[in-house]
């Protein structure tokens, strides 16, 4: 439909970024003219169900959480490798498909291993 899809994409990105800014600016103008902001010590405190907040929110998270991220990383890279395979699949020979099958099976084996090691238990 148009010859420069990436130029259109840039226009899209700019308009999409401006669109949410407009109501925010409108709201800011409203505060400026009609309803001035009235910050207060307890009003702008961190919300914790009415109690005074204790300690920092940015605490260390349990390491187990990151195992998921590592397993995800491996599989995500795999899906990236699957992308060109998927687009070329119709023209591939049976041998190439079998080679891809071996690649996928290796990764599935990784999933099975992580599973049997109990890394996929969330507790």
């Amino acid at each position, binding site marked *: 439909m148009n010859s420069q899809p990436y130029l*259109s994409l840039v*226009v899209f990105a700019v308009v999409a970024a401006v669109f949410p800014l407009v109501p925010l600016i409108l709201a800011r103008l409203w505060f400026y003219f009609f309803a001035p902001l009235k910050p207060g010590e307890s009003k702008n405190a961190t919300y914790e169900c009415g109690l005074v907040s204790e300690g920092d929110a*940015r605490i260390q998270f349990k390491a187990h959480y990151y195992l998921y991220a590592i397993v995800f990383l491996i599989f995500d890279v795999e899906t990236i490798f*699957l992308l060109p395979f998927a687009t070329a699949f*119709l023209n591939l020979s*049976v041998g190439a498909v079998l080679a891809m099958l071996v690649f996928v099976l290796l990764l599935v084996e990784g999933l099975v291993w992580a599973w049997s090691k109990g890394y996929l238990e*969330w507790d």
Partner: protein
Amino acid sequence: MNELFSEWVRRAVETLSEMLRNPDQAPVVGKAFIVSVFPEFLQGVVGAFISIAALISVFGGLFALLTLMERKGLGRIQNRPGPNRVGPFGILQPVADGLKMLTKEDIVPFRADAFLHFIAPVILVMMSLLTLAVIPYGRNMAPIELDSALLFFFAAGACTELAVFLAGWASRNKYSLLGAMRAIAQMISYELPLLLASFSAVLLVGSLSLVSIVDSQGGFMLGVLPKWNVLTPWGFVGFIIFMIGAFAESNRSPFDLPEAESELIAGHLTEYSGFKYALFFMAEYIGMLAISGLAVTLFLGGWHAPVPFLGWVPSYCWFFAKLLTLACFFIWVRATLPRLRADQLMALAWKCLIPLSFINLGVTVFWHYSAAWSFAMALPARWGIAFLALAVPYTFLARQLGTKKTFARRTYRFAE
């Protein structure tokens, strides 16, 4: 000058009559006419601008409609009337909500990172609008025809989750951060089944372009059954996996753990007020519509008509009819299913959906190679083998998700 003007009027009238004669292509013709008014070097920019203006107005309207539909639908399902005070039957409720949000004080906590706190909803809305850019809404009506549209959709879609994390991190609130952590865990778990399920559609088309994927689903089998992907064994299973992933990706119930009201107040939304809060909602609904749109494109035949004799209805009407059906399904599921626990959520993704979507990919390959079978009963045989290949692993995978715990029968004591 006068001649130029009369020439312009003549062409405008011509365009209008063309639009009326062929409503299927009316938006394309109208856009081409407006673009042709501008000088050559501006035409690309103006075309893109018109497309996104149309997208924002259509999806802004759908967002307003959907918030009302959701509240009304939930109300009816829970045996209460839902909003009914603003305007007849409460149809002006979204307008009232918008005005209220606009005039509410914008409270930013002292400890929050003010800049990130401000930028997070903006990025979220921007990215969810960008995902809309590549979906074909009708015949010749994809706003941007990328060759790698599917990849772009998932890239922009993943950015929305990062914006959710940004919101949670910038708020510097325990609930927000927990919600954000959950959002990321959920995203990385459900991204994989979502991608793998959509790959089966890519495999048999050989292109990441959503336009060619829709084109491949045109036409009818035996003259009645549409050639949609959902009507094949791999497409059916892929569609179900995709929809489960879509629920999780758009943080909708039963996967709304990042904003679980009963435990995390509102998750990453806890410290947001005023229009920033409204922007989060807008992004959630637009994201939901976008991923439903992708489901329609990949599995439900895009803008193709479901029966041959209704082919004269404009293509975009079919697309939006299917889109709204899926949106109603989202609302229905929200009213029906309870929220999952975090460990159940992760187990469902890693121990059931991911293995199943790998098997589904294998079934897709089988489906392609068995298309050449020519003996009698070839079609039932293909269906049978595909069904067995999917159903047997499914029973095992689904069974191990159960807890095997037996609960004592609950007894209730009522006040006398």
